[in-house]
């Protein structure tokens, strides 16, 4: 413990290289420390940004907060589609068991979840593979899961269901069930096909969007902007604090031109009409009502329909198979815009307009009807076997005399150029109406010689023959129209010659109810036909519901004058299709209605009463039950 005097001379044990030896060790030391310093410089200064990002990914989880979708109202503010709260179950792969490290737990987790959610294990595995591409994001595998017992069970077994997330979501709710199904459409998860479209280019996979109907057409208004929360989590995935919180912006509300009362009446009338003709084999039909003065659709019904809430949370494949089976008569398909029908006699007013405009006939032109028409070694029958006698145009329309129009057809055939085709195309036949709904059919057709040339197989088939023109003159042959086209064309007659673009969108309001957008009615064009000519045709159509007219029985005692036209279209090998179109009041039209009952039989006895019911509802002149007229 005592400090000894310090010896000053170097020890003799040393060799003379001692300083060098220690120097070597010192150099080695500084080289090693230098390596660390350079490595730190490289990691922290040169590539620090990369590590910062990884550290952030480690601890930050972004949680989407779904924006509620806009509500859809009818024109009177009645809610047609709204939202309800629901629970989604999803996979967060980075917190789940690793299939490589813990294969048993992983399998147990997948199988367990499949059982609880009533899914296929293989289905869930496929979802997991997809989810794995972005392991930090929850991938929803089942929407609208019941809180009890499913979600409760998942939460109770958190050890088994590691990384299984339950999220709040908004689901569509339909207060009236199967009501206005086709026009409303439905929402669902975006498909790759959807995402490829310009309209949805900003969306990410898994987003919810309108799949059909106005839900799709007005998706950009209805869909809000999702908010998100960024949450800091610890290594075990437990949330520690909220870093950012962006509230979602709810979608805007859509108001439709539809009146739900009228829609209900139209749907009821359609069902009644079909039931009337059930014995005939009727199973489907369509009704559409439009304001002829501006193109606003007041009601549009297609039968059979289905409950759109089947789509909520994804339609079960069994259910989908059921709905697409032939015996279900295709409820998924909107007959108003997708149904292609022969117009039958309802086409006669348009043919008459074309013939009058071309000067082929005058209102005074008469033809003698003996129940059939013979020409070109062929015989065409009138629906009235005993004939109508000598009839002028007004009578021909009112009584729906076929022979008169066979003659007109023959006269039109002898004109140079497709006078008949051009004449009826002015009403929009053969073209889409431009209604604000997705998926309107482009299959509509007004046949002419060019069409025949294209589709005909033999040289004989390729010829446009007089018989083709004669058939077209009574709305038969190869003519195909949609109910929507008919109501637009009918409206043009009713309103004096304006072709409107039919539309369902009326208003957009924001979440607090302020009007932020109004859809203007759009004109597609004018017929360019004198009012005198239209007046003659209108008069003929008024005659239809007057004494002696084909729909006299159907509109007997109806207090408001209705102008219309019956139709009984042949569509072999099926039974006749019943059609009726009409507008009212005849002198100052407010509403135009078209009804078609597939295999319904006679237009006058099946379709006309349906239209009457709609008009009764519109004018509040209801009668207790559908009137079944007895005469054609």
């Amino acid at each position, binding site marked *: 413990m005592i400090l000894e005097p310090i*010896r*000053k001379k170097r020890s003799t044990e040393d060799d003379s290289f001692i300083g060098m030896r220690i120097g070597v060790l010192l150099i080695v*030391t500084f080289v090693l420390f230098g*390596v*660390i*310093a350079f490595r*730190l410089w490289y*990691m922290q200064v040169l590539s620090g940004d990369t590590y*910062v990002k990884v550290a952030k990914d480690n601890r930050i989880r972004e949680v989407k907060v779904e924006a509620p979708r806009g509500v859809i109202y009818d024109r009177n503010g009645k809610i047609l589609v709204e939202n309800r709260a629901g629970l989604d179950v999803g996979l967060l792969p980075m917190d789940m068991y690793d299939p490589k490290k813990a294969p048993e737990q992983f399998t147990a987790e997948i199988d367990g979840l499949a059982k609880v959610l009533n899914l296929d294990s293989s289905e869930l595995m496929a979802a997991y593979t997809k989810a794995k591409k972005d392991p930090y994001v929850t991938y929803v595998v089942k929407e609208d899961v019941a809180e009890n017992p499913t979600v409760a069970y998942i939460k109770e077994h958190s050890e088994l269901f590691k990384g299984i997330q339950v999220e709040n979501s908004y689901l569509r709710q339909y207060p009236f069930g199967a009501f206005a199904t086709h026009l409303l459409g439905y929402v669902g998860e975006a498909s790759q096909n959807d995402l490829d479209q310009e309209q949805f280019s900003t969306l990410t996979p898994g987003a919810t969007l309108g799949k059909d109907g106005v839900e799709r057409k007005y998706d950009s208004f209805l869909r809000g902007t999702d908010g998100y929360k960024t949450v800091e989590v*610890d290594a075990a995935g437990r949330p520690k604090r909220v870093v950012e919180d962006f509230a979602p912006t709810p979608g805007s509300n859509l108001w439709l031109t539809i009146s739900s009362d009228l829609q209900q009446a139209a749907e009821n009338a359609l069902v009644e009409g079909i039931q009337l003709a059930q014995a005939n084999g009727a199973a489907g039909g369509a009704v559409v009502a439009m304001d002829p003065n501006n193109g606003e659709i007041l009601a549009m019904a297609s039968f059979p329909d289905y409950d759109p809430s089947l789509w909520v949370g994804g339609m079960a494949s069994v259910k989908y198979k059921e709905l697409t089976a032939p015996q279900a008569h295709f409820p998924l398909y909107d007959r108003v815009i997708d149904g292609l029908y022969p117009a039958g006699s309802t086409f006669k007013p348009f043919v008459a307009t074309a013939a009058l405009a071309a000067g082929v006939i005058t209102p005074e032109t008469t033809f003698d009807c003996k129940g059939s028409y013979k020409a070109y070694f062929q015989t065409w029958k009138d629906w009235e076997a005993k004939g109508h006698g000598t009839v002028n145009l007004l009578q021909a329309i009112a009584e729906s005399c076929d022979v008169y129009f066979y003659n007109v057809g023959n006269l039109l055939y002898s004109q140079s150029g497709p006078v008949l085709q051009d004449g009826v195309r002015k009403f929009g036949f053969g073209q889409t109406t431009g209604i604000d709904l997705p998926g309107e059919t482009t299959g509509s057709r007004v046949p002419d010689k060019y069409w025949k040339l294209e589709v005909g197989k033999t040289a004989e088939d390729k010829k446009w023959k007089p018989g083709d023109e004669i058939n077209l003159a009574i709305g038969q042959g190869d003519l195909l129209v949609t109910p929507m086209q008919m109501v637009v064309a009918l409206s043009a007659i009713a309103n004096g010659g304006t072709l409107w673009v039919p539309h369902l969108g009326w208003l957009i309001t924001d979440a607090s109810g302020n009007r932020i957008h109004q859809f203007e009615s759009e004109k597609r064009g004018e017929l360019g036909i004198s009012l005198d000519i239209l007046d003659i045709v209108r008069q003929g159509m008024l005659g239809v519901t007057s004494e002696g007219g084909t729909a006299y029985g159907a509109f007997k005692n109806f207090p408001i004058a209705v102008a219309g036209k019956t139709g009984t279209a042949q569509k072999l090998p099926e039974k006749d299709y019943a059609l009726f179109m009409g507008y009212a009041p005849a002198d100052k039209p407010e509403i135009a209605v078209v009804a078609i009952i597939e295999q319904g039989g006679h237009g006058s006895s099946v379709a006309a009463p349906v239209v009457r019911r709609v008009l009764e509802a519109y004018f509040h002149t209801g009668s207790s039950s559908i009137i079944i007229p007895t005469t054609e």
Partner: protein
Amino acid sequence: MAPSVKVLQNARERRQPLGFSLGAYLRSMDWILLLATLSLVTYGLLMLYSATHADTNISTPFFYVRSQGIGLVIGFAFLMMISVINYKRVSRWRTYIYAFTLLLLVLTLVPHIGAGNSTVGANRWIDLRVTRLQTSELAKLLLIISLAAVLAEGTALRHRLRFVIICVVYLLVPTALVFLQPDLGTALVFGAILICMLVVWGIRLPHLGALAGVSLFAAVLALRILPALGIQVLKDYQLQRLTIFLDPERDPTGAGYQLTQSKIAIGSGMFTGKGYLDGTQTHLNFLPEHHTDFIFAVVGEELGFMGGILLIGLFAVVVWRAFRIARLSDDMYGRLIATGIAGMLVFEVFVNIGMTIGIMPVTGIPLPFMSFGSSSLVVNLMAIGILESIHVHSVAGQTR
């Protein structure tokens, strides 16, 4: 000619009375070494607090810091005591010290006396009731002292290969005992100490070459040849830990997890760090063992490149002073002890930090003065005490 400074110093020393003089003692201390050491332990306590204060399973945020602080006080007491003792007198006890070291290491391996991490079946400690002694830590120091004595005495024999071999075997026995614990890291530290001491001792270059060759062969034997013959020298987890640093992505959630998270922590600290107590990797528990072997990752994350360089700088000062003491020591014994301590510190610092930044394998070597663990802290402070003793008793006079 005017009297030189040296002459004046000698005159002053001559006036010193025999016996203990506090003034002289304090004057002859290596203050730079002491200050650097104090800075390191303070740095260590601050980082330990940051790493552990938010732990949920401790009663007070100071739980670990307090425990480490007790170690610090004891260690400093040892440091001061040892620095007063003349190291030269210890040399004659070398055989007893060596025997005591072997006894400690053997006892550690004996069931019921030795204890440790039962999950990997390793015995690291002897339970002393009041505290647990990690015997391999103490063994490092005791071996430096005893081996230095053997080598210093055999200076004349350094051209004799047989003597060199005896010295190697002398160290190999305790190394084997430590390896059996199994504590591969400390066994490697023993090796590093031996090499450094032999170099300064004056080992002939061919002998050094032969030693390196044999070591290499032993390594290949242990890692490749014997496993191929079905004899496992290293346990699976040891081998896994040794090699995972080459490619931590091979198993990012398993063996490579710690390494990956450590690199993320350090890299994301960037130049100035995320701020003291603000390391996300540490506080959200992404980085396991952040208060023991991976304490440097906390430094790197919270204090960035600057904090890391400061720490390395402090270590560099300590090591520089140790080598300086070795160079200036007036006898071979002091020279070898100082070299052994310097070599031990350099090796531990490099391997530990190298591990956290992914350039060295995971061997479980703590960072001196920084990692949580009283045994390591006390032993390292004792080592500094020995350096001070050499400085006081052998160097101080020569520098004046």
